[in-house]
């Protein structure tokens, strides 16, 4: 705000200009009245409202807090979190308090991030030691998606370093000081797990409450519960007898993903809900535990079985991926003319009711259709992309 002009500093020479500027349509009659009461006017402020104080009460209180209690938040202490909860912590000192950024929210925790060394170790194991993502995930206790992301990011970082692009090194250092991190274990020590790796996503079908009477004499396991939730009939006795434990199903499905049954018809058709042993990211860990229970004193044998299982799984996944890729390549022909910057991917048009609609004018059909305006032109069309190809 510019400094308020005091009446004392206004000289008589300025007065006419001031009045004329404030009201351009000022009548002549106002001037004599002003000159007559000029002595009174000079002692009066221009504004009738009192000038505000330098600081409001709230502002004063804020700066008081910032200078006393809040001063600890100004700078961080390396290796420690510095959240608002530390103010309330003084009485009962709990370990979990230090990692809660919001005093009112009991349920949000600032989870540790991967330290620089651990990140490089992940990259080293996946790229240089050629271990599978699944194995590294179990070894270090990091989610498989995160491992894939870490490899991608470290590779990008290496490329940028090689290209000499600018990096934000001091910023990275500061963030790693402020946020809790999972360190890489020293040699001989056991690696602390970064996060739970066997998370089972809650399926919407399991949200319903179902009254399903079962005789007390009968054992009712996870496989059957899944069938009840998805509305499938109970298994045949012969089929049920084959499954001694739900994790048997996991191996069966790994070998043949099409062995999962279907319920419903047409658009309502859906796969039967599988037990948790199948739907978790690392079903082989359950199988390993079962081996351990069956052969408690044969560690070596259990480890061999597990490594064979993992190899088999990797081989199957690889084969599946290659088959998919081959099918995709078979569908498209790529033409790359010389002296051209572009590749042309040519696909055969499939002209069916599903792709072009009943009248052949479906909005997703190929080509321009007479009488159907382009999507761009229709009203209320959102043009923000929904995906960006990697």
């Amino acid at each position, binding site marked *: 705000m510019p400094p308020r002009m005091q009446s004392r500093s206004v000289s008589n020479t300025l007065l006419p200009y001031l009045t004329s500027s404030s009201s351009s349509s000022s009548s002549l009659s106002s001037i004599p009245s002003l000159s007559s009461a000029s002595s009174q006017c000079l002692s009066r402020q221009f504004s009738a409202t009192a000038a505000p104080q330098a600081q409001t009460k*709230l502002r004063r209180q804020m700066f008081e*807090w*910032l200078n006393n209690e*809040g001063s600890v*938040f100004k*700078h*961080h202490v*390396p290796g420690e*979190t510095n*959240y*608002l909860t530390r103010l309330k912590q003084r009485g009962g000192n709990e370990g979990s308090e230090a990692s809660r*950024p*919001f005093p009112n*929210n*009991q*349920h*949000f925790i600032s989870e540790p*991030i991967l330290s*620089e*060394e651990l990140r490089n170790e992940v990259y080293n194991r996946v790229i240089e030691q050629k271990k599978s993502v699944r194995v590294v995930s179990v070894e270090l206790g990091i989610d498989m*998606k*995160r491992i894939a992301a870490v490899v*991608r*990011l*470290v590779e*990008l*970082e290496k490329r*940028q370093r090689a290209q000499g692009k600018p*990096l*934000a*090194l*001091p*910023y990275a*250092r500061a*963030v*790693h000081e*402020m*946020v809790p991190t999972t*360190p890489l274990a020293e040699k001989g020590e056991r690696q602390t797990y970064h996060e739970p790796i*066997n*998370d*089972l*996503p*809650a399926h*919407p079908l399991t949200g319903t409450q179902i009254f399903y009477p*079962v005789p*007390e004499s009968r*054992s009712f396991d*996870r496989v059957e519960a899944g069938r009840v939730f998805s509305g499938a009939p109970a298994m045949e006795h012969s089929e049920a007898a084959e499954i001694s*434990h739900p994790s048997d199903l996991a191996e069966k499905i790994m070998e043949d993903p099409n062995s999962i049954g279907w319920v419903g018809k047409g658009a309502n058709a859906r796969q039967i809900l599988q*037990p*948790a042993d199948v739907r*978790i990211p690392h079903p082989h860990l359950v*199988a390993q535990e*079962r081996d*351990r229970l069956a052969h408690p004193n044969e560690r070596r044998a259990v480890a061999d079985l597990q490594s064979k299982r993992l190899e088999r799984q990797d081989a199957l996944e690889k084969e599946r991926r290659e088959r998919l890729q081959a099918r995709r390549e078979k569908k498209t022909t790529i033409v790359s003319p010389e002296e051209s910057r572009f590749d042309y991917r040519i696909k055969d048009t499939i002209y069916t009711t599903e792709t072009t609609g009943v009248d052949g004018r479906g909005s997703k059909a190929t080509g321009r259709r007479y009488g159907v305006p382009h999507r761009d032109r229709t009203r209320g069309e959102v043009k*923000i992309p*929904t995906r*960006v190809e*990697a």
Partner: protein
Amino acid sequence: MRNRASNTLSKGKIRQSWSKYNLYNMQRFRSPPTTNRTFFQQKWSAKAASRAYHGEQVREGQWKRMFNHRIRSVIPMNASDLAADDGSLVSSGRGSGLDKGGKPAYQTRPTPYTHMTFAPLERRLDVAIFRALFASSARQARQFVIHGAVTVNGQKMKHPSYLLNPGDLFQVDPDRVLYATGHTKTPYERRQGRLTRRKAKAESSKGAEEAEAAPETAKEETKETEKEDTKETEKEDTKETLKALLAQAKSVMSAGKNTLAPQRKQELRGFQQAVRRVLSRSESSTVLADSLEAQFSQLTLLLKAKRSEKPEKKDVKPRPEDAFATDRGDAEVASAKKDTEATASDKLSEAFAQATLGNEVDASELSDEEFDTLKRALTQMRDNPLDNSKTYSTPWQPRQYMSAFAFIPRYLEVNQNICAAVYLRHPVARPGSAEVPTPFGESIATPAYGWYLRRRW
């Protein structure tokens, strides 16, 4: 879109921002009272408070379309539990497991579903950039996107409302991130920046003119001047410059937060000059004086040569935190060692001088700490240089009050070095915790969720 997201004290709303006003508001925020208020009023005020934080830049209608009453959640499974029981134990008896002394078979913490009400907003590009700590507020993140500083999967993305898909990699220009998270420039620094810019401009125009006029003569002149320079510097005493170098390295490392900014900058500048002087005298001086990177590699090479000569002393473990050693942490260490090393530092400077002159040195007299100090000073100088042309205060420091807001949710994997992050998956709730960062407790989250259920309860 007009920015209405001011951090007013009178309203006391919490925003997605690192401002100190916001910190103060967050600390004094109390849940609105429920006594003598209708259920509608309770839901209204809960909605108002939470929408001021979550997606305040998103129109209400837009958000209502994004809202989904179904909330993602996961249950962490224990492999040994699954192996031990096929589910029949839990369903035995009358359907809920056999009663074992009044204790349920499985004890679980409740899942805070309603804390996840605003999970769809976390998919937005601008919010994700703020969550990855690349911007100091969601509004700033939005501006970065609009100004073209953000790429998604390597392509420039100009829509802040782009909804990230699992596996998307987004990257922000590192300079913008340093600007957003760093200290602002002081008027003095701004003036210095202006002056250097002006000087560079004048020089470039002058250089262009000269180059046009007489390219050949100019080359000869520069050669001559170079020769003269080297002759002059050789005359100076090597030992003294090296001593000065080490002293400056120490003062650089020991400067705490109490040191005034200009003073610290003078020190840094002096150190930089000293390094240049030392390097100009070593054998391969032709490469050196150009870039900090080259200087650094040369000096570390010299130091490495020294280190390899004495493997016996190497038993000192390289500390894991060395990679992220701090200015302040270093400062404490350095200042503590200062007194004891006063005599030893002379030896180091001597040895260093001899090494630069290409002579054989007895390196066993030197302490590991001295190498470390010098090395760290050099690393800092390389990684965090003094550069007035930047938009933020240099050497870079985190802005004040940043640490109170610094957390990275699990659904993002961030690489701070290149300012890139991957959106791994959608945020989920799990027993005992929710992944959507929200400053509000149960008493606000649940009524706000109820509000968006289209008045169904």
